[in-house]
């Protein structure tokens, strides 16, 4: 195994601690206009009239833009259902209705109040299960006519815009053979990503019809494609730049506010237009997260063998569908959990609802279905009178198993059993110091995760040797806290056999000259961009050898690359230093031999295919990652107050590139998901307005919730053949099983089964002396 050189600190630590790191809102230009957005106060309404006469007369107002200015600009990622500004109809509270551009944001703020909009309020729905009813208001009555870049298998005359089916074996036979059929419904409500930095974008159109945009995006190339498609211009005319992101977590992937910013800027050529969301807007006018109801019907034998499972998953996907089509798919693939089940019938639905659109959020469909699946296993164990470990281990995917997609699981996919046993062992050894009036519970969950992505989602990298023998590398992985650039530096340094300080990673991305990278999502950058870097390194080494062979006058094949020098394999005394040849070798008489070493590396996930429309099976997942998680909780018997004592995860990371950063990713993911497990839920009033669009009303974990918590993170290292040095992605996985671990811990502490997140203190209190599942 290769030793990965270890950095002392992440490469951007100094800049970030000192406040020097530039985020989108730290960038401004002279004569820049501020864009302020008038948003719909209604969840669902027709726009009857917009009066902008008054506002246009106000001092300092450059331009007012409404949906009437839209010709055919539509955001069509998978489904062409979304205009950058509402046209004739609003479908969620917070949807943009008009944009005011002004140099002075105070003037713009004042102007917003002078725009008069007349609405005809329509019936609305915020929950998928309501939205699928026949008498539910149709949010997109014309969805049949929409252009689609992908067949999403929508249901005509309904709010279902995506239906993913997965079929394996014969589910009815399984139910007939079962000793017991256990059926439950689990609810995972919508959440907000709450990156500490809200979304921002700055755009300018030049007179050459070229657009330059700075954006807080995880996906500059994706934004470029979407905006080019929206304006029917060439992708090369759209230049998207991104630097540091104050958190992404998926909520800054795909597109959110960038199309609107680009659209508004088009009306004021040659001026930069900045749109920066307030916190309130980040809650109700960017992308939101999750929102799934999962019904599981499981056929089991009395020895705990799972014979079959039927799952129905309903996503409350919000008003527009493109950003969640593939979440529906990922949830479908993964709803069986890390188990081999021979008979499966899954129907996963993306359903239009009158809320902000749901987009990717760390875990991408997996936490939703694991909440259901890992609670279901726990409940099955209780109902059969068996140990939950026994059921999990009996049914676990292992080498040779066939997963739900029909893929064969190999040993190289990771040590699920080892991870699970490690967590059980750690939970068992924790001795609880029992206090009066408290009860305690330990909860466990097993997890699996696969990224879902287009089959051609490439990554690439460029490598340049400089005159002094240092190396510049660029790859299009966004830095949003996960430490991508640091990991890339380590991978490059290891592959180049050069010290870390000789390798520099370019930190910002610009689509006009950075190497292509589809998006920084799905925990894929370490292995995809990492592989692209290794490809570039391989080519650079070849080129260095070529130069060396000319200088030493030997065959290239007889040379060996050793980092700082290239030696003749059979006679080490014959060598040339890398820094002497990386720019071509300069002889005393001025003659140059060889060429500068600059290379390009690429990586494409191999062999991915679309899933079969009938069975939903196919090679849709490029890799699998397995692990297990556990929590220990203390609950106050009188108040229901829950305190987290321990939180832990074991994950097969393949190869840990940077232990400190890897631990930070796992813990960060777990705590983020603890929010979803215990406190976070977007709530809507009867009028469909979001009721908790602030940190006061939407509670994310604070330092006080975690101060006394002990964390354990265990890395297993079964090398992943497609990853650099065997590494897998690990950035999202901390989220996947935390909610069920809490649910199972509460069940063990109080003997009640809860089915609906979040597991708030209030909910625990109201249920603790009852049988559980009071709907609160």
């Amino acid at each position, binding site marked *: 195994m290769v030793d990965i050189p270890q950095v*002392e*600190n*992440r490469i*951007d*630590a*100094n*800049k*970030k*601690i*000192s*406040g*020097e*790191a*530039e*985020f989108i*809102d*730290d960038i401004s230009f002279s004569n820049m206009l501020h864009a302020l957005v008038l948003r719909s106060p209604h969840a669902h309404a027709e726009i009857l009239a917009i009066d902008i006469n008054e506002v246009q007369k106000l001092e300092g107002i450059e331009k007012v833009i409404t949906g009437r200015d839209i010709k055919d600009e539509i955001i069509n990622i998978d489904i062409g259902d979304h205009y950058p500004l509402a046209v004739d109809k609003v479908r969620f509270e917070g949807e943009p209705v008009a944009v005011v551009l002004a140099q002075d944001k*105070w003037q713009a703020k004042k102007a917003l109040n002078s725009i008069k909009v007349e609405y005809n309020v329509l019936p609305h729905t915020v929950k998928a299960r309501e939205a699928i009813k026949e008498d539910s208001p149709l949010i997109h009555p014309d969805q049949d006519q929409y252009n689609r870049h992908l067949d999403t298998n929508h249901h005509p005359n309904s709010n279902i815009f995506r239906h993913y089916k997965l079929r394996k074996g014969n589910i009815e036979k399984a139910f007939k053979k079962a000793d017991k059929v256990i059926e439950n419904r689990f609810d995972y409500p919508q959440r907000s*990503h*709450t*990156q*500490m*930095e*809200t979304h921002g974008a700055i755009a300018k159109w030049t007179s050459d019809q070229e657009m330059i945009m700075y954006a807080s995006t995880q996906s500059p190339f994706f934004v470029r494609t979407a905006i080019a498609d929206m304006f029917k211009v060439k992708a090369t005319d759209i230049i998207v730049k991104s630097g*540091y*992101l*104050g*958190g*992404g*977590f998926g909520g800054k992937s795909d597109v959110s506010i960038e199309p609107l910013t680009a659209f508004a800027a088009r009306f004021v050529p040659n001026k930069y237009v900045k749109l920066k969301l*307030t*916190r309130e807007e980040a809650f109700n006018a960017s992308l939101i997260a999750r929102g799934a109801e999962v019904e599981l019907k499981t056929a089991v034998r009395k020895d705990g063998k799972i014979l079959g499972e039927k799952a129905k998953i309903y996503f409350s996907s919000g008003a527009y569908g493109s950003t969640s089509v593939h979440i529906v798919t990922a949830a479908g693939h993964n709803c069986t959990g890390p188990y081999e089940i021979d008979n499966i019938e899954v129907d996963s639905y993306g359903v239009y609802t009158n809320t902000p659109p749901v987009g990717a959020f760390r875990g991408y469909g997996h936490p939703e279905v694991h909440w259901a699946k890992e609670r279901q296993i726990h409940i099955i164990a209780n109902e059969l009178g068996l140990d939950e470990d026994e059921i999990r281990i009996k049914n676990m995917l292992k080498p040779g198993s066939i997963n739900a997609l029909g893929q064969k699981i190999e040993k190289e996919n990771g040590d699920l059993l080892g991870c699970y046993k490690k967590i059980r062992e750690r939970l068992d050894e924790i001795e609880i110091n029992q206090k009066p009036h408290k009860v305690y519970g330990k909860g466990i969950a097993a997890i699996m995760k696969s990224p879902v992505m287009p089959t051609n989602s490439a990554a690439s990298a460029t490598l340049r040797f400089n005159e002094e023998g240092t190396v510049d590398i660029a790859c299009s992985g966004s830095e*949003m*806290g*996960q*430490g991508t650039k640091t990991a890339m530096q380590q991978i490059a340094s290891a592959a180049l056999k050069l010290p870390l300080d000789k390798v520099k990673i370019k930190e910002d991305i610009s689509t006009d000259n950075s190497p292509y990278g589809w998006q920084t999502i799905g925990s894929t950058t370490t292995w995809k961009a990492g592989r692209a870097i290794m490809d570039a390194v391989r080519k650079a080494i070849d080129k260095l050898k070529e130069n060396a062979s000319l200088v030493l006058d030997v065959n290239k094949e007889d040379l060996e690359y050793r980092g700082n020098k290239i030696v003749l394999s059979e006679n080490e005394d014959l060598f040339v230093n890398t820094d002497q040849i990386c720019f071509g070798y300069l002889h005393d008489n001025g003659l140059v031999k060889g060429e500068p070493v600059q290379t390009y590396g690429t990586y494409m996930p191999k062999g991915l295919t679309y899933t079969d429309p009938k069975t939903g099976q196919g090679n849709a997942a490029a890799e699998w990652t397995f692990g297990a998680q556990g929590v220990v909780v203390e609950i106050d018997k009188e108040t229901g107050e829950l305190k987290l004592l321990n939180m832990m995860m074991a994950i097969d990371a393949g190869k840990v590139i940077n232990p*400190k*950063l890897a631990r*930070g990713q796992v*813990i*960060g*993911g*777990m*705590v*983020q998901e603890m929010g979803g497990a215990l406190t976070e839920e977007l709530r809507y009033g009867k009028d469909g307005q979001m009721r908790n669009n*602030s*940190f*006061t009303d939407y509670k*994310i*974990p*604070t*330092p*006080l919730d*975690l*101060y006394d*918590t002990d*964390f354990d993170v265990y890395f297993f290292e079964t090398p992943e053949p497609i990853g650099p040095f065997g590494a897998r992605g690990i950035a999202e996985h901390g989220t996947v099983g935390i909610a069920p671990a809490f649910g199972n811990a509460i069940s063990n502490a109080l003997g009640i089964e809860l089915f609906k997140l979040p597991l708030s203190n209030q909910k625990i209190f109201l249920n603790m002396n009852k049988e559980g599942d009071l709907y609160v």
Partner: protein
Amino acid sequence: MAKTINTIINNEKHEIEVPYQMSLLELLREELNMTGTKEGCGNGECGACTVLLDDLPVRSCIILAHEIDQKEVVTIEGLKNTGDYEKIKEVFMAEDAVQCGFCTPGFVMAVKALLNRTKYPNDQDIKEALGGHLCRCTGYEAIHKAVKRLV
């Protein structure tokens, strides 16, 4: 409506005219180009915009600019040259208490205020100092470990 104020920001005297509705955060970021102080919520809920006002940590997004008249402000830019900053930086780096870095300057200011108050903070002191700061990336473990290293 505006008011002329006299203030010291990062050891430098300023006489500035500020509109009454302008927040201290806006003054710092938009007028004085000190962008090290970040805006996370604009409502005093997250702590990202923390600065020191006469040595006490305040949320600059809910302090009006004219309120700093005759007072002294220290921002992350002004903290950089103090010995405490180097110490704080060192422990934040050692524990990798930084991920996206957006909340970090606010945390650093909170820790500086804590050290101003006491050289030997106990658990309760640390909880009080950090309790109102939000971080969505780290899960706080690394931040807590970093600050405990200062004790």
